[in-house]
């Protein structure tokens, strides 16, 4: 009885100290936004399908209704540009790729800072466990001191290769890009199988090419912010990338994006690819893949300057113009919770939560070479696949045009010099702003 009065007195004191002390309301409640409806602009891919399939569960948990609008990648960006420029209040959440467009979107004020929500115990579930995310992936979602998004996946470029073809030819998985070139030459057997398949389309090639750039000691930008394209490292990287693809690649390479590269491997028509580790699931799906059980994974090969592993993640953000930020944040927590990520991880999609990677039951089922490679690469991976610039798209396209020139047999040096000039003028202009 005495204890009760003491507690009651404490509550009274807390209540009297007014709005600065909100302890009494600080309890997290999934039902806090019951009855609202939120709208999500999303990418039309597997994670969005997963969210949509499980929506009834979220709506039961929170009483918040969710409307999904999903688009292919390019269309999503266009839709976003139009909606954000118009400061549309009806969009509460959207997906983007921070390492490609984070800088531009955040300088344009398209992201709500998630830090206040993360710090607010009444907004963030105690079970959500932010520290569980890989640090490299979590930090890649920060710009200018703001937390702009939460990762929906974690991707690093790995080398998928056809174990059966390598064994038949008595080859070992290449450890360097030169060895990769030699293996591609050996296994190139058109029209049945090409030695090496990779992205060649203007907007997509730079993502794959960047691995070669860093392996040759290059960088998107020099320390003083100038383009790193007119360098011998970039030239060597471009020459090697174009040489392998011209001699041992798909004839349609200049038009190939991720879908085409993935399809070539799925159909058993590529011996080696260097691309997203998240494709492991589909490569082992007997309904879609002709190479189930015939492939293995090895770390992305290095070059004269060693190796830098690439990191990429699609992520989800709250719109700064949303009037239902708390409801949106509830959805974002639910979508990136361990419970929601576990089934995806089980299907071979790499997730950004470390706890899922140490789960012994899951480890026992995962493809061993994939598991080992991906966990090794995550420890040091960096977002090198895209230039860190406000004008990232222009930089990517300038490089892509140079790569396309090299793929068509033009002088790579001249192509890169033009690209460097374009990049420098674009970056100067966007920075001046």
């Amino acid at each position, binding site marked *: 009885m005495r204890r009760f009065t003491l507690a009651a007195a404490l509550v009274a004191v807390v209540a009297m100290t007014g709005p600065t002390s909100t302890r009494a309301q600080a309890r997290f409640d999934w039902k806090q936004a019951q009855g609202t409806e939120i709208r999500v602009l999303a990418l039309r891919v597997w994670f969005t399908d997963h969210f949509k399939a499980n929506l009834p569960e979220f709506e039961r948990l929170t009483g918040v209704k969710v409307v999904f609008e999903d688009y292919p990648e390019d269309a999503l960006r266009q839709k976003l*540009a139009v909606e954000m420029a118009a400061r549309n209040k009806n969009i509460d959440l959207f997906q983007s790729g921070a390492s490609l467009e984070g800088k531009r979107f955040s300088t*344009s004020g398209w992201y709500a800072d998630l830090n206040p929500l993360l710090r607010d115990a009444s907004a963030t579930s105690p079970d959500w466990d932010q520290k569980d995310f890989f640090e490299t992936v979590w930090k890649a979602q920060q710009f200018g001191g703001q937390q702009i998004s939460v990762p929906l996946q974690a991707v690093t470029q790995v080398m998928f290769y056809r174990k059966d073809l390598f064994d038949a030819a008595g080859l070992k998985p290449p450890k360097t890009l030169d060895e990769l070139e030699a293996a591609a030459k050996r296994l190139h057997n058109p029209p049945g199988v090409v030695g090496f398949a990779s992205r060649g*389309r203007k907007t997509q090639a730079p993502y794959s090419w960047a691995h070669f750039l860093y392996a040759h000691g290059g960088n998107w930008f020099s320390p003083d912010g100038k383009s790193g394209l007119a360098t011998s490292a970039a030239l060597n990287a471009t020459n090697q990338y174009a040489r392998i693809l011209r001699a041992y690649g798909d*004839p*349609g390479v*200049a*038009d190939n994006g991720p879908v085409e590269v993935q399809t070539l491997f799925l159909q058993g028509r590529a011996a080696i690819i260097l691309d997203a580790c998240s494709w492991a699931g589909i490569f082992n799906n007997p309904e879609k893949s002709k190479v189930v059980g015939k492939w293995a994974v090895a770390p992305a090969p290095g070059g004269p300057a060693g190796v830098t592993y690439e990191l990429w993640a699609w992520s989800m953000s709250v719109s700064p113009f949303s009037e239902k930020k708390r409801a949106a944040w509830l959805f974002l927590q639910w979508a990136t919770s361990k419970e929601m990520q576990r089934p995806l991880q089980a299907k071979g999609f790499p997730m950004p939560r470390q706890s899922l990677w140490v789960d012994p039951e899951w480890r026992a089922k995962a493809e061993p070479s994939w598991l080992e490679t991906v966990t090794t690469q995550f420890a040091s991976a960096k977002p090198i696949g895209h230039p860190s610039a406000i004008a990232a798209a222009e930089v990517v396209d300038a490089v892509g045009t140079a790569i*396309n020139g090299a793929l068509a047999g033009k002088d790579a040096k001249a192509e890169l010099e033009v690209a460097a000039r374009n990049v420098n003028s674009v970056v100067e202009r966007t920075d001046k702003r």
Partner: protein
Amino acid sequence: MTRGGRQPHAAPWLFVLPAFAFLIAAVAFPVLYTGVLSFTRWSASATEPPVWIGLGNYADVVFHDSGFRNSLLVTAYFTGVSVVIEVVLGVGLAQLLNRDFIGRGLVRTLLILPVAGTPVALGLVWRHMYNPSNGIMNWLVSGIGLRPQRWLSDVTTVLPSLILFDVWQWTPLVMLIALAAMVALPPEPYEAAVIDGANALQIFFHLTLPLVRPAVAAAAMLRLMDSLKTFDQIYITTQGGPGTASQTLNLYVFEQAFRYLKFGYASALLLVLFVLILASNLILVSLRRSEKA
């Protein structure tokens, strides 16, 4: 408006008001808004409003933009070649089909199918057909003993490949218009020509062609306008690539606006494109006028 000395009525104006308001909202406003934006620099930022830079964008378009110059050349090549081929082929086909034969209806229907197809679906089909590894085009050219081509994936063959696609899709439209004109021609001059001993070629060049010329010119103008604005079929097949080899003006503007978010600059480009299309049509119209005079 005045009739029988009565005061002018407001009623007729009221009746056209809704249509007028709609026209302002749907046509004039977007054009004016684009015009205003074209004098600014704005990257769709939510924090920084558009900055007024006067004629700066136009100066960049005209003097500094190599991408614009490239797409101007690509557009001229694509439009020039495809429209000429479509008009010549279309008129020729119309002449062939302008007679009675078994299955005429079927042939005409089949020929019209490409016009009726949705550009996106057709674009995907042609993209597959042009695939260098497993597309039907390389199978066809190998069949007649030619070397396999890279088609859309090569800077030298991408435009001819796209022109072939465009010709396949739009020749039937020219044919339809020319055929409609031919069917409506009076029989008397032809009877006279036959009596005078003219052969088929002479009849076609000296009789049919001059008589259907206005219809053909209209068809050419339609195709010219459309071709200068081509977007969907190129976007679906090549996205303007490889590099910028098939980047027509419309694709270039699209890239500036929705990929680079340079809305001010893209607006200026759009108005330049608008003026170019208008000018090319005015030239065509004045050519027809001077011909008649």
